[in-house]
């Protein structure tokens, strides 16, 4: 390994990159834009637009609706005058939830009979609907609970000390803020894309231009050429990671609980892996367009399987096994572990080891394929 030749390549890559304004802008801004978008879009299911058909029109029915509003999950936007109104708003998409209170609601309450309240939820989006349904049910049982206690007290009966007291505590993210979970994930996701894409394009572009042929005839070794190209990309990657972390901490108030040093070390292992992936793609694809398509083909399943959106534990077993082949899976666990939970190498060593092994396999294959002889 001749380090001066490596450095010659690295300097050339730096200069070339810095002169290409559009690429510089895209590389520096795209990660931040993605973090901002994901950060804002990942907010909880709240303020679901709701239409109410209140046939009771009593203090009791208003009390019920107040409970819905106070939960912050429902926002009563429309008053209906008929069932058709309710259906039309939901079908039109203006309302996601419809509440119907029957005329005898208050009367049945006073007669100590349980009146029925209908809550219809647009369940096209199952995740949001699930939240709405469980919150609605919780509101119902909480009201019932209160009424039972009141009844007992009024009758002078002793209040029974039975029941289960579930005390749920949200560790690591006590306020249950979705962005605390999502933003570190976006860091991993964005870096995977940037590193794979840049390493692919620096090689494929050189090949399409014809300059790769010229380099191949020079005394430079393929390993020196690769390393020289990777050094600037790793620098760019670290600038991106730092910018994303600053944005996460100071804009989204995502606390970085664990060791930043450990984070930066594991980021390096991940860079190594993703740069290898990009190089591998460049050796397979015949053209730039083909390489871009191939990368999508790699990155799409890797995002879906990694646990970025869908928890791995709830995947079918076959897909779980597949997810263990995806480097992003390990890196996500590492990044979330360090940033959110503040755990260190004592818990993360299996992931770090596997990511390193996977990285070595990918990188070695890439180097072997990226031989000097280009037939």
């Amino acid at each position, binding site marked *: 390994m001749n380090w001066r030749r490596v450095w010659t390549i690295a300097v050339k890559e730096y*200069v*070339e990159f810095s002169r290409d304004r559009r690429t510089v802008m895209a590389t520096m801004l795209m990660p931040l834009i993605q973090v901002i978008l994901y950060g804002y879009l990942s907010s909880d299911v709240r303020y679901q637009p709701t239409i109410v058909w209140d046939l009771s029109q009593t203090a009791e029915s208003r009390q019920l609706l107040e409970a819905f509003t106070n939960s912050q999950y429902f926002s009563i936007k429309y008053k209906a005058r008929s069932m058709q109104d309710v259906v039309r708003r939901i079908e039109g998409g203006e309302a996601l939830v419809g509440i119907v209170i029957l005329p005898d609601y208050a009367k049945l309450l006073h007669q100590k009979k349980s009146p029925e309240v209908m809550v219809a939820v647009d369940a096209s989006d199952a995740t949001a609907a699930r939240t709405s349904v469980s919150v609605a049910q919780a509101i119902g049982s909480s009201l019932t609970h209160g009424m039972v206690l009141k009844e007992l007290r009024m009758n002078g009966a002793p209040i029974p000390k039975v029941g289960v007291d579930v005390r749920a505590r949200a560790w690591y993210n006590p306020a249950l803020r979705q962005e605390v979970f999502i933003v570190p994930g976006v860091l991993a996701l964005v870096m995977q894309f940037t590193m794979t894409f840049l390493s692919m394009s620096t090689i494929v572009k050189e090949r399409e231009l014809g300059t790769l042929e010229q*380099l191949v*005839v*020079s*005394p430079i070794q393929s390993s020196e050429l690769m390393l020289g190209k990777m050094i600037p990309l790793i620098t760019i990657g670290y600038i991106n990671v730092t910018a994303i972390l600053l944005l996460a901490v100071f804009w989204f108030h995502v606390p970085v609980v664990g060791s930043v040093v450990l984070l930066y070390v594991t980021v390096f292992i991940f860079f190594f892996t993703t740069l290898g992936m990009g190089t591998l793609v460049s050796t397979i694809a015949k053209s730039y367009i083909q390489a871009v398509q191939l990368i999508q083909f790699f990155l799409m399943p890797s995002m879906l399987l990694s646990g970025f959106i869908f928890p791995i534990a709830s995947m079918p077993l076959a897909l779980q096994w597949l997810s263990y082949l995806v480097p992003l899976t390990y890196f996500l666990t590492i990044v979330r572990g360090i940033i959110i939970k503040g755990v260190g190498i004592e818990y993360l060593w299996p992931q770090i080891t596997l990511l390193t092994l996977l990285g070595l396999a990918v990188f070695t294959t890439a180097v072997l394929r990226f031989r000097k002889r280009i037939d």
Partner: protein
Amino acid sequence: MNTTATTVRAESLTRRFGNFVAVDNISFEIHSGEIWGFLGPNGSGKSTTIRMLCGVLEPSSGRAQVLGYDVARDPESVKLRIGYMSQGSSLWNDLTVEEHLRFYAGLFGLYGAEQRAAVEEWMSRIGLTQRRNELAGSLPGGFRKRLALACTLLHRPQMLFLDEPTSGVDPVSRREFWDLIVGLADAGRTVMVTTHYLDEAEHCNQLAFIYNGRIIARGSPEELKHASDAGVTVEILSKDNVAVLDAVEDLPYVRSASLYGSSLHVTVERNGDLVRLQRFLDAHDLDVSEPAPITPSLEDVFAGLVKAASPSGAP
């Protein structure tokens, strides 16, 4: 073996891609100080041969030595000592003239004061000192080619491989470029060059014509023009050159016929055929001048060679 006189020695060099034989058992020698022209249509095997000689592409069979090193066994020694200008670009649009020279100097192991000296020297020799900070992407075509050439010369290679170095360049720049090449050969460097321009081939000491992977003719430009099997070329003037060309080009004894400026060059197999050609022209009442024998141009020679070598066009 006299390695001082022979810079390149190819013996039965062959390269196959699958079933396709790109270079078919060719042998030749290039002597030091020669400008060796490698001519032939697109896809005839020129670039494949050069890439084998540069140690980029392994020969399927046969062997080749460049500057005494075997290209298959010791490609790295070959690469250190040659200059190679590929058909594609060797320049990056976003790098300046000076950055290119420094980059290639570094690649070939020149650093510090040695690098600065080599860069300054070549920048002035190609006349780009004034444009040292200009981006290669904004340079005119002729300057780009000269810069690319200088990039291959910084490490003072004794052997130069130039693959169509003047394609897409205007005639004045082409001439300036050839002045540089001739100067390099005069200084003792050996040059192997491929070209499509047959006027450029006149600058070469030796020529080889490759067709379908085989060398079908070789010699100096003069030898090729006067070779006994080169046929007899006559110039014909007429009012309607195209009509005459259409009439004569498929005659069995006409080896080649082509428009040449305002006249028509026709090459026939031997002297006796001239009488038959004259008779044919008279019989068909074509209004032409008396066919006048001339020295054929390289174009006539090669047009004839290709026609003779191609399976369908053979008489």
